[in-house]
């Protein structure tokens, strides 16, 4: 293990630890005030969403505008878990985690079952998967919650409060992200069959649906604590720097490790030439779904982080106009460049919410929505491939295998 960490990886590891320590010290000393801490955490969250989108659009070639929808799902779901928990109700935790686990099991069962039949239509697969998911959550609400809820609550209360808070927060993040992943799976089955442009429109529709649902959480949906269009208040502000850092590193490593593997190459081949990929034995649809689910899982995770930093959720934050933000970041940083996405993600928030908001003259804050499109315009004119193009820092770059030393004899020599 250790000997594999050589060269650039070691520097990146040291650099990451250094960044973590320095920021932590600055936060503890109060050198970074709440405002800039918010900017930092927000930047990390939006970068995570963008990294997910980069996998879907930059590497798999599927144009998605739905990432803010999954971001919202992750945010609301995890906020609901922790909100209920601090109000002495373990129901959120049990339903989200238990429901996700049951739904995942049932979905695995359904897909294993359907694989044994020829020519199952997409719609049939969608219906069975939807039924499996609904059944999973129904069981979680009706069976799991009354049975497991009270003893679980009693057990967790017996632990030290600090530990419990962290455990519940972790499970809330995991649950929110998994829920986003499951919903993206259900949504992806029928919609990923469409071509990329149509997929973009469908995901845009998805974001709008999620926003409308968020507006009506207390009327259409049975979640009075989310308070619909008035905005959800009272979410415990549990997001701390270590959590942000860990989540961010997790996302970066997840993306890197997936992309630089056989699975990642299969994902990229779909972007390059779908028909050729299919005729090289790649199950194109399943890799589209995989990239979409992974990207949405990450968006859900970012949503959880953001919700517990802001401690307030409003449907207007998940407006479909916002869903263009990750897209702009990904294109701005360079399609298919993780380095570019990370850089552009932080720069975006820093510029838009940090620098411009602070340094534009008073009364001119709204002018930042004039300034940044101008920057984008100039950028696209000068560097249409994005800030970084396809550049990656060595840590995120695919290591090219060495050519073999001794050249084998070629066919001509054998034949000759």
């Amino acid at each position: 293990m250790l000997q594999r960490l050589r060269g650039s990886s070691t520097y990146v590891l040291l650099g990451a630890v250094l960044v973590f320590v320095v920021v932590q010290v600055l936060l503890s000393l109060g050198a970074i005030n709440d405002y800039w801490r918010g900017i930092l955490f927000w930047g990390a969250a939006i970068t995570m969403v963008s990294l997910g989108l980069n996998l879907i659009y930059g590497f798999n070639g599927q144009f998605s505008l739905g990432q803010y929808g999954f971001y919202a799902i992750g945010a609301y779901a995890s906020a609901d878990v922790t909100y209920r928990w601090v109000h002495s109700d373990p129901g959120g935790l049990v339903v989200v985690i238990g429901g996700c686990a049951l739904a995942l099991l049932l979905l695995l069962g359904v897909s294993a079952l359907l694989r044994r039949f020829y020519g199952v239509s997409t719609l049939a697969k969608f219906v069975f998967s939807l039924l499996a998911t609904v059944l999973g959550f129904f069981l979680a609400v009706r069976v799991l919650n009354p049975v497991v809820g009270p003893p679980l609550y009693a057990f967790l209360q017996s632990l030290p409060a600090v530990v419990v808070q962290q455990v519940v927060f972790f499970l809330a993040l995991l649950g929110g992200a998994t829920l986003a992943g499951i919903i993206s799976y259900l949504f992806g089955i029928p919609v990923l069959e469409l071509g990329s442009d149509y997929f973009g429109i469908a995901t845009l529709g998805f974001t709008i649906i999620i926003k409308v649902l968020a507006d009506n959480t207390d009327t259409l949906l049975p979640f009075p604590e989310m308070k619909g269009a008035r905005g959800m208040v009272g979410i415990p502000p549990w997001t701390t720097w270590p959590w942000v850092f860990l989540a961010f590193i997790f996302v970066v490593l997840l993306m890197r490790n997936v992309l630089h593997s056989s699975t990642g190459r299969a994902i990229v081949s779909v972007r390059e030439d779908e028909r050729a990929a299919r005729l090289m034995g790649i199950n194109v649809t399943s890799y589209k779904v995989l990239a979409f689910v992974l990207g949405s899982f990450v968006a859900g995770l970012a949503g959880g982080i953001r919700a517990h930093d802001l401690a307030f959720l409003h449907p207007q934050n998940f407006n479909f106009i916002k869903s263009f933000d990750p897209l702009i970041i990904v294109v701005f940083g360079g399609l298919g460049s993780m380095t570019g996405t990370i850089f552009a993600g932080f720069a975006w928030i820093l510029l838009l919410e940090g620098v411009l908001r602070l340094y534009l003259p008073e009364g001119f804050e709204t002018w930042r929505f004039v300034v940044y499109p101008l920057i984008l315009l100039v950028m696209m004119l000068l560097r249409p491939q994005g800030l970084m193009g396809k550049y990656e820092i060595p840590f995120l770059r695919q290591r090219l295998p060495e050519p073999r030393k001794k050249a084998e004899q070629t066919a001509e020599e054998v034949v000759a």
Partner: protein
Amino acid sequence: MKGRPESVSPEVEQRPVVLAIDDLTHYFESLRAVYDFSVTLKQGELVGLIGPNGAGKTTIFNLVTGVYLPTEGRVHYDGVELIGLPSHEVIQMGIARTFQNIRLFANLTVLDNVRIAFHPHAGYGLLDSVLRLRRFHDKEAEMVEQCQELLGIFGLEERQNDIAGSLPYGLQRRLEIARALATRPRLLLLDEPAAGMNPQEIDQLMELIHFIRDHFHLTIFLVEHRMRLVMNICEWITVMDFGEIIARGTPAEVRNDPGVIEAYLGRQAIR
């Protein structure tokens, strides 16, 4: 036997059937692209399919590999029905193909092109790669080695880290065959492998095709309209025109068939 000429040696007739295409018919809307097409390939054979442009040759390949669903007919590979299977499952059963117009992953490296085709045999899953378990490193090294060996056979080893689209045309053709072989086929469908090649390159290609057939124990079905290649390497040939079979036999038989000459050179050539 159906879909075979009579002039094949009895020794070959003893071998098992690899690909059996029976009465394949395909319409694009009301246009008849393929009509009542039958061919049976025995193990280890090298069979040619020729015909003028637009005769329906590539359509046959597309029907076999699940790109189109035929209007009528059956295709069996090793006795298993292929019609209705999605392309990737057909390929994973052991059929590989190349394309008439080169369809490499032009922005990826030469090695990655081959590794993508190798993917179904990678031997590790998503979890192994996310957690970078030992199996990931082992299998990945194994994969690289096998792909390099394959590239070595095609003289592409030194260019493994070059971008595929930057290779010269002839090497791109070779890379396409190498990539097809990485799917570990037993049946190889070559779609006009000699398109755009000069006579010298065609000679090299003929040697290469012979070599890979023996080295990988392949059955090869070859679409081509360059006579030089087909006449020299194929054991027997099926000729089609306007979607129908017009002749079948050894190269010598086909060369003298009046129907074939008419299809290629026009009616005047016979007089």
